[in-house]
């Protein structure tokens, strides 16, 4: 099973590369959805990235804005389905 901290780094790197502007300071606990960095459309591709990267399937009902609201929460969710 991938190490949690390593996974958080991978997800953080993806989020920064995908969504952040140059002057955005994004950390493991930065609110992504409620903070306006990631919109609901972009959430679909983030979920897709996680599923392909970790070879898992996250049920749609678990992929809520709250569950995707920061990198720590996302990593915790992924861990459940490994």
């Amino acid at each position, binding site marked *: 099973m991938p190490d949690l901290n390593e996974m958080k780094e991978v997800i953080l790197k993806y989020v920064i590369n995908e969504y952040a502007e140059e002057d955005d300071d994004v950390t493991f606990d930065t609110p992504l959805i409620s903070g306006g960095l990631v919109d609901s*459309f*972009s959430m*679909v591709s983030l979920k*897709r*990235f996680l599923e392909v990267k970790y070879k898992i399937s996250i049920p749609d009902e678990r992929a809520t804005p709250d569950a995707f609201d920061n990198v720590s929460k996302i990593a915790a969710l992924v861990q459940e389905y490994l």
Partner: protein
Amino acid sequence: MGYSNKTKQIYTDQLDAIAAAGLFKQERFIHSSQAADIEVEFPSGSAVKKVINICANNYLGLSSHPAVIKAAHEGLDTRGYGMSSVRFICGTQDIHRELEQKMTEFLGTEDTILFPSCMDANAGVFEAILTQDDVIISDRLVHASLVDGIRLCSAMHDTFKHSNMEHLEEKLQLHADKRLKLVVNDGIYSMDGDMAKVDELVALCEKYDAMLLIDESHSSGFIGKTGRGTHEHYGMMGRVDIITTTFGKALGGASGGCVSGRKEIVQMCRQKARPYLFSNTIAPVVVAGVLKVLDILNESTERRDKLERNAAYWRKGLTEAGFILKEGESPIVPVMLFNAKLAQDVSRDLFAEGVYAVGFFFPVVPNGQARIRTQISAGHEIHHLDKALEAFIKVGKKYEILGKSKQEIIDRYGQ
């Protein structure tokens, strides 16, 4: 009464908020036909003023061309005013199919289907050809009509950073297992005037077995040696699977649009695209006008050549005067002012000087990217451009922005 005071208040609050943010759009009434010289009533109720128009999509100056008007008259006389029907019931005339065939030849595709507008073409094409098993990967700056069309479709939607081919390739790899993949771009981006890298897009799409859709609304008629569009510019005729475009800009400027491309895709649109199935056929008078426009463009490249010269002349003049422009080669030349109020003030002062150019600011462009978007036409003569340039310089001097850097303008006016 269903429209209670409470309901009314909800709307007036929203309208007040739009006005308070300085974002309330007011229309200017034009008392003449569309051309380089127009007569405008603004504000409403004021005397009509003659101004030079440098913000129309009338790229080829064909909106009021005598031969187009004559052809439209003939279309009106021989085919009537309206058809009172959608295409598939009793709304298809011989000239509708003739225009579809001529657009197919003009764009170098396999088949074409007309829509009431390109907005409708973009609203209808995705849902007609894709399902939830598929993915759409669009450039992040594509036109609002494409965004809306994509939202109406059940396919997964992902995006790539503007014109970033490495990012697109990552996304094509990420979605490799999808049944169908469709990459979506504008040919010329309407706010910045930059061109999609069509050659690289085609190569990536062919490598990853993805279809490519390009909206050529701001390029059909004048980009490429004979004005076919960005696919001609890059030598990619026949390799773009779906082209959507409009007749409401360079191609006569009236209305209407189309989806042109692979035969099966056009057939799918004819069977399933809802804006095609459930809205009226394009009026015969418009079809007759567009047919004449295509004749004019097939006879000579004179107008697109003149447009190219005019755009280069305009861009050079503004650059030498010290304005900051978005780089590019298209006739869309954005003059960057960065601050929304400054853009509005400059637009107002230009109008007082006899030049009609509109300020664009958030949410039409990103925050801090306010600008005056100028659009050059083959209908402009050098004297129009010289006079407009003189006005720009006068207003630029007033606001002390000539020769200033982006940071200096932001420091003075804010972002």
